[in-house]
């Protein structure tokens, strides 16, 4: 938990739609994030920005683990569910307990944020080997 203690209330506040548990990825992987939102209004275009990072007082995005995708909504006179997929390339530093959030931006009004999803990703380094030698041999 990266030294942080969360109350049940704070967890419930931050997570309204619970994705599956923690994911382990390696540098160079791509993580596909599925997002849903209900929309009502005129036909508009916008963007979704998805980022892994560490949430403190603010959410410190990791510039190597984020993506921005274009989105479009049709004219809807009542709420309608929309689903979007965002592929996030995992670069930057390794680490554990990365948090996740996304926002809809470039639409009329202020940006729309998901809850913050805490401790969702561990990023391991690429497998490395060294000192590969034969140290002995004998009859068995």
């Amino acid at each position, binding site marked *: 938990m990266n030294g942080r203690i969360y109350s049940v209330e704070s967890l419930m506040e931050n997570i309204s739609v619970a*994705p599956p548990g923690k*994911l382990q990825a390696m540098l160079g992987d791509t*993580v596909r994030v599925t997002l849903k939102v209900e*929309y009502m209004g005129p036909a508009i275009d916008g963007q979704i920005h998805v980022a892994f990072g560490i949430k403190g007082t603010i959410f410190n995005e990791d510039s190597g683990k984020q993506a921005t995708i274009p989105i479009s909504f049709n004219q809807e006179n009542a709420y309608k569910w929309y689903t979007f997929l965002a592929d996030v390339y995992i670069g930057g530093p390794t680490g554990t307990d990365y948090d996740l959030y996304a926002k809809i931006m470039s639409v*009329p009004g202020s940006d*729309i944020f998901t*809850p913050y999803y805490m401790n969702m990703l561990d990023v391991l380094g690429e497998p490395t080997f060294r000192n590969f030698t034969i140290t002995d041999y004998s009859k068995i």
Partner: protein
Amino acid sequence: MDTLGIVVEETHGIAAGAFTKIVEIVAPSSAVAGATVAVTIKIKNTYTSTIGVSAVGVRDSVDRFIDWPSYNIPAGATHSFSGSFTMPNSACIIHAYSYYYGTDSAWHFDDEMAKNVSLSEVFEGTISKKELEYDGSRANIPAYDIPENNRGLVHIWGRNDMSDAQRMGIWWQVKDPDGVARETYAAWETWPYTGGGSTHEFIGGRFDLDKPGIWTIAVQLFMNPSDQVVVDDYYGNLCTVKSAIPEPTFRNFGVTDYSKR
């Protein structure tokens, strides 16, 4: 008239109506000057066999508008003879006469009837303005692109086109795009009535413009409450209502899944 071939033995001294009976004069009891007054004279053969019958219709002994048409009417049957005249600038009397064709090859007067036609006053008025009020705004009818879910209110002005004051009445019905009546309004104006050349505004009740599409209205303007006369009317579109598009609104934005590709 000699083509009929059906004759009746002439009986001297026979009373009018011996072989025929004028059953009815079908005509309006009143008409405005200059109007075409349609008249039908119904004559019944009261004899025991077919006879040749002719009819005459005269207005005020001046205008013979049914001028001796003839017909072989079977025994007991009734035949209609029709014609019309132009209503004069005064009341008039319609005189109807029936004749039968005798064995002497002559027509003989048989029955008569009369009917009065009074002169109707000509009422003249005009629907001079039509407006739709909605959301604090007004637009002439037919109005266009009214946002959905406003409250509508119809205003109709009737103008008295006569020289003296008249009491005007109104009736209208608003229908939504599905043809469902949404507002029906009827009223006679109260005293003092509208003077010659002046207008009176009728205001209906409010109704919800809650369906996109074409709304219609039927309007009739009346005068003369005791024998009401439609002096003007309008049947057409009230307005078009456009869908209300809500402001962009989002809810329940969240991540539902994520996985390595």
